[in-house]
């Protein structure tokens, strides 16, 4: 067998081994999460290795207990879902409002400093979130915003503006100039052009960017921990889950139900928009 033949055969098999391996490491953890969330804690302790739940063990009590409000003896995740949704939606709106004009300017207009803007916004990433956390923590404590969901949304903008500008800029440059020129000849001002011509055309990227920002805000943990830990009414789902896991003894299976509840909204959004999102993120990657 020649070397070429050997390699064809070897990598042909190796490819399937890799594919199976990748499927296992990405799907099994989530299956495991789902599985434990519908088991009573006893059956987990009796047989930790089991990859199945028998129909007589199957229970949804975990979900009931995690969703019920704290007054009714539950963990109050329903309220936390509301908080998370509020923060995430506010972050999306604020970020888009701040980033759309910026991305448009960077992609279309030559102005003083235009070549440095993207670099400046990317430089944000150089600084650890913990570096921003210190002054923001102090600032918010001073302003009395430290227990506030709005304050949290404001902080998240900082985390999401650079990626948003990057994603939208890559899309804006693909919209032909001539469309804008046509609008200008028809007498539209630049602001009108952006609102009536560019934004409708850029809807896919607005969606993709918005979804990505939503995910970042929904998943965020550090700032929620810093600003809201003292105020259980304001906990987001991420923070609530961590606090419960660390605090008083709540059974692991109930916490798993909490994990599923935290994960599901993001996963649904993601699968609904996977193509849009990955294209938005990686556009420009093939140019190296």
């Amino acid at each position, binding site marked *: 067998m020649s070397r070429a033949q050997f390699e064809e055969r070897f990598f042909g098999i190796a490819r399937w081994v890799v594919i199976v391996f990748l499927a296992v490491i*990405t799907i099994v953890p989530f299956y495991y999460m789902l599985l434990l969330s519908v088991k009573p804690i006893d059956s987990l302790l009796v047989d930790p290795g089991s990859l199945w739940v028998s129909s007589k063990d199957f229970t949804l009590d975990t979900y009931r207990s995690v969703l019920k409000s704290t007054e009714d003896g539950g963990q109050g995740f329903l309220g936390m879902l509301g908080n998370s949704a509020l923060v995430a939606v506010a972050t999306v709106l604020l970020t888009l409002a701040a980033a759309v004009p910026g991305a448009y300017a960077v992609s279309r207009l030559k102005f003083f400093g235009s070549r440095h803007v993207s670099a400046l916004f990317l430089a944000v990433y150089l600084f650890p979130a913990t570096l921003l956390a210190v002054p923001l923590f102090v600032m918010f404590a001073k302003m009395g915003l430290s227990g506030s969901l709005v304050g949290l949304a404001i902080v998240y903008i900082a985390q999401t503006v650079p990626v948003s500008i990057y994603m939208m800029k890559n899309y804006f440059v693909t919209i032909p100039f001539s469309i804008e020129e046509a609008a200008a000849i028809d007498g539209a001002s630049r602001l009108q052009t952006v609102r009536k011509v560019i934004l409708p055309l850029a809807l896919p990227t607005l969606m993709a960017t918005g979804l990505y920002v939503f995910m970042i805000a929904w998943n965020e943990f550090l700032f929620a921990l810093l600003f809201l830990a003292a105020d259980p009414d304001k906990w987001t789902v991420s923070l609530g889950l961590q606090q419960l896991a660390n605090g008083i003894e709540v059974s692991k299976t109930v916490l798993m139900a909490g994990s599923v509840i935290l994960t599901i909204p993001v996963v649904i959004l993601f699968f609904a928009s996977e193509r849009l999102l990955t294209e938005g993120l990686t556009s420009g990657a093939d140019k190296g």
Partner: protein
Amino acid sequence: MSTKTSGATVRRGRPRTTSSRENRAGLAFVTPTFLVVLVVVILPILWTVLLAFQNAKLVDIQENGLFGNWTLDNFQQVFGSPGFWSSLGTTLLYTVGATAGSILLGLVAALALRKPFRGRGILRASMLLPYVAPVVAVSFVWEVALSPQYGIVNEWGGKLLGWDDPIAFLSTRSYEVSLLGAHFDIPLALLTVIAFESWRYFPFAFLFMLARLQAVPDSLEEAAEVDGATLSQRFRHILLPQMMPVIALLSVLRFIMTFNKFDDIYLLTGGGSGTDVVAVRVYDFLTSRFDVGAASAQALILALVLMVLLGLYFMFFGKKVQEEQA
């Protein structure tokens, strides 16, 4: 590119030149973004610099002015404290390990999923799950799965691989392994968080590399195949050079992100068992000692180290990457 407005100023009443109008419009459009970045990023960073040079505790920060009471105490304290240097070392190990891990795994995944097969679309989508799922949820799943008492990994490890005792992956600082009669100590908890980080972020690398791979023209490879190049030779001499720019970019991005990472490690180990990266130390100084000054000083040093490393990288490799691209 000229931004001069002389034409408009000399002959008053005439409309401004196009470039000057564009300049004004550009600045106007960038202003909202810039203001936001100024308020939530630039000003806080400047304030951190000030705080790092002040004796600031959270309780007396109300009385402290913005300026004055300069001191180098924080830096003395940080550099003098025994844990700092080792935690900087841990941060580096963790960052290099997780960056390399996620990029390698991403590359392998991109190569394996390059050619279409049944179910590729759904597999590609589900491979992104670790990246999009909330960190609190996935770190909790890992914690439970790796638990020595009720974790599935130890249970199966015992059954299939014949482990004698359950292994406490997340709380073992060093674990003795014997290989061919020799004994090694491996930093188990650190390796576990590196594995976690590689797992969580390989989809990101995978996405970018798959996009790049699919843009490589088929003719290149076909020509090499006709010339008798084997699969591995085609990878080494054709695909890899094509991928280099994207790999370099991903390395920088992942390095920066991982270097500053806080939540993944905090959630998995709380920074114990040899996983005390600087970001977690900053958090500890801030919340358990309320020592704002020392926390700021450490965060500042972390950012400076990162900048020096990036500077070195671009000095030595920046040119090379550009040449590869050209």
